[in-house]
């Protein structure tokens, strides 16, 4: 049976068909749906872990125990999980172990544009890169075979356009793979220096064997057409190359680490010149040059952002595209915004009003940096808000700390904010942390997390009590407040930043997009409006200024009730 499938869904299907036993992941665009689709298969145990390092370690444990295991993450998630990755490369596996990493060229939903292929090279593990959904499924299954055959973890790398595109997939049945026997093996599984040294030798031998395997593997495809132009590409770049230069000869690389040396040499013999088409870093290009093969690469192609069919036509075929139609006036941009009803809006309204320094974090609330609230000062990485505020205090002193707060979501706090809070307490900081507890992992599309009290399968479970957790690490001042009660919230923030000790404010209100929020109806502005524009300061996309003063868009208003709380004239009422 054939089915139109998202790349991420096809990876999940591949895991299912490969008989995978255990999957542990942390959500992150563009990888999230892999684990969400896996959770629909009852044959596979799946979970959301607090962060990617925990997830990968759990998958390593499962594989060591003899099961087939997988962990999926976004590119920056692999940074978090890099520590176990580099050492499990030495240990190898018992049951197959596959890590899926989703890169985001063009930064559709990310804070950087790193090229995770560099991790495969650095950690000396094989990496496969599919180019469509059918390959997402096939390569996932192949990755488990390679993992077990070569005693190595395998990384499957996708990019946004493969992860979030749909194409046809042929479905097959699940092949049950028994959990392998577990026997204690200290030399293999305990990485103390004495055991790791011989392991490193094995890793280097493994890489050589994998390169041989790769050259003979059906993961790669050599398509010889017109031999004047040869193109080497992998992943989505292959699709752009086929679209732009259908007559060219193409070497499509399916396993991008270690490279198929013999195959590349063979291809180079057949074509007059070679273009390497790869988004981001010159990984394939540098390899080709290192084995003495002359290629054209980043001297004509950019290191930045996504490629396209038109770009390749322009660079390889030197075809100028026809001048497209253009409007002869500026078209206002439409950046992403916090949704109407967003629970974070009340928080940033208050922080903006108090003109505080705000160290931010990764989640929907990063949009608090946008106009008109423009509240956030810094964003680095998951969990980086509390530590940024702490570092600022240590550099600039307590007066600065009294004008500074750290903000992060519930899921992000559990991910890696808690260690920062411990740092503050342990090292006598006075940082005020606001946990934006919206009862869900919002930005990635509403996943459960340890603070919501539900598992990935929506089963009730023991909920991390954020208030008790903050107390337990030594924060005495913990306040729970509703961010839509803006007057009280302002009072609470003022009190906590003034305190000469660490404090935590849990801003509690569910995400407007989940049922728990329970918003119904909508609001309208009546004739008591004095056009003071106070409601405009909220930056709610449902409220626009017209010639007759502010107006609420009936299609956007969700009836959250925040705007009546900032109107001094009682001019906003339920419709």
């Amino acid at each position: 049976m054939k089915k139109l499938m998202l790349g991420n869904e096809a990876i999940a299907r591949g895991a299912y068909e490969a008989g995978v036993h255990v999957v542990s992941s942390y959500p992150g665009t563009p990888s999230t749906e892999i684990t969400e689709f896996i959770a629909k298969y009852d044959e596979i145990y799946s979970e959301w872990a607090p962060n990617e390092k925990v997830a990968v370690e759990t998958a390593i444990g499962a594989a060591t125990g003899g099961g087939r295991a997988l962990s999926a993450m976004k590119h920056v998630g692999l940074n978090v999980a890099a520590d176990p990755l580099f050492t499990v490369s030495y240990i190898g596996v018992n049951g197959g172990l596959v890590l899926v990493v989703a890169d985001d060229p063009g930064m559709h939903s990310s804070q950087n544009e790193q090229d995770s292929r560099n991790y495969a090279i650095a950690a000396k593990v094989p990496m496969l890169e599919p180019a469509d959904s059918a390959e997402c499924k096939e390569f996932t299954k192949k990755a488990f075979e390679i993992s077990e055959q070569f005693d190595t973890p395998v990384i499957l790398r996708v990019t946004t356009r493969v992860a979030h595109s749909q194409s046809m997939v042929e479905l097959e049945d699940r092949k049950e793979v028994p959990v392998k026997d577990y026997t204690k093996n200290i030399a293999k599984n305990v990485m103390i220096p004495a055991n790791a040294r011989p392991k490193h030798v094995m890793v280097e031998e493994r890489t050589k064997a994998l390169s041989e395997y790769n050259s003979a593997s059906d993961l790669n495809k050599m398509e010889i057409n017109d031999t004047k132009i040869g193109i080497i590409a992998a992943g989505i770049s292959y699709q752009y190359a086929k679209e732009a230069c259908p007559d060219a000869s193409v070497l499509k690389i399916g396993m991008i680490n270690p490279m198929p040396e013999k195959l590349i040499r063979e291809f180079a013999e057949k074509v007059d010149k070679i273009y390497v088409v790869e988004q981001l870093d010159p990984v394939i290009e540098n390899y080709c040059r290192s084995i003495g093969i002359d290629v054209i690469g980043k001297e004509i192609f950019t290191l930045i952002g996504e490629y396209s069919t038109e770009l390749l036509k322009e660079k390889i075929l030197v075809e100028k595209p026809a001048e497209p139609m253009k409007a002869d006036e500026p078209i206002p941009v439409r950046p992403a915004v916090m949704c109407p009803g967003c629970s974070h809006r009340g928080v940033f309204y208050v922080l903006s009003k108090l003109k505080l320094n705000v160290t931010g974090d990764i989640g929907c609330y990063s949009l608090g940096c946008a106009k008109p609230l423009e509240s956030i000062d810094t964003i680095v990485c998951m969990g980086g808000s509390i530590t940024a505020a702490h570092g600022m205090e240590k550099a600039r002193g307590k007066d600065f700390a009294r004008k500074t707060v750290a903000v992060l979501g519930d899921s992000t706090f559990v991910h890696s904010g808690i260690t920062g809070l411990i740092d503050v307490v342990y090292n006598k900081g006075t940082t005020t942390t606001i946990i934006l507890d919206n009862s869900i992992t919002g930005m990635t599309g509403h996943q459960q997390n340890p603070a919501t009290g539900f598992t990935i399968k929506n089963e009730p479970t023991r909920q991390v009590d954020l208030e008790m957790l903050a107390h337990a690490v030594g924060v005495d001042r913990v306040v729970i407040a509703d961010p839509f009660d803006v007057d009280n919230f302002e009072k609470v923030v003022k009190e906590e930043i003034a305190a000469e000790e660490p404090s935590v404010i849990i801003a509690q209100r569910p995400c407007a997009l989940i049922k728990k929020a329970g918003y119904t109806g909508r609001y309208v502005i009546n004739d008591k409006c004095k056009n003071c524009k106070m409601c405009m300061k909220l930056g709610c996309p449902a409220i626009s200024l017209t010639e007759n003063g502010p107006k609420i868009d009936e299609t956007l208003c969700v009836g959250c009730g925040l705007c009546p709380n900032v109107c001094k004239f009682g001019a906003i009422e339920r419709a």
Partner: protein
Amino acid sequence: MNIMIVGVGGQGTLLASRIIGAAAINLGGDVKLSEVHGMSQRGGSVVTYVRYGEKIASPIIGEGEADVILAFEQLEAYRYISYLKEGGKYIVNTQKTNPMPVITGAAKYPEDILGKMEKMGISVTSCDALALAKEAGNIKSVNVVLIGVMAKHTNISKEEWEEAIKQTVPEKFLEVNLKAFRLGYDA
């Protein structure tokens, strides 16, 4: 066939592209869709692509390559005119949603967008999909109203479109959506 769906995050462009994808599969050829998830979905400008035909390589549609652009909002229609192929067709919902720069007063919402597009020689079919969605019983069904408007201009029959909707839309919303589709189709 290259179809682009453009709109504002939250308008249901993803479901629309999936319905078109389902209808395209039933033609028997190759189909590719490209979607937008994550941060860009939150009220931002969103674009999804559907391509079908004998063999499709790239899931993305480039400038000057779209046969049909289905626009859920006027400003978003205007933003993507460079993607329309010569002789291509625009289906535009007349609904307007102010982007944040307009809300904050930093920019102006362009006037008479549809008139300007027509003056440029673009074939535009416009429709007040919001009014029809209300008539169907749910303002969220704007997406399926627009599919209905577009359906008339494709080589896929009305029945095949309805079948694709049945395959894609959850059971409990099916009735409203089929009504929305028919209202769009007859508009």
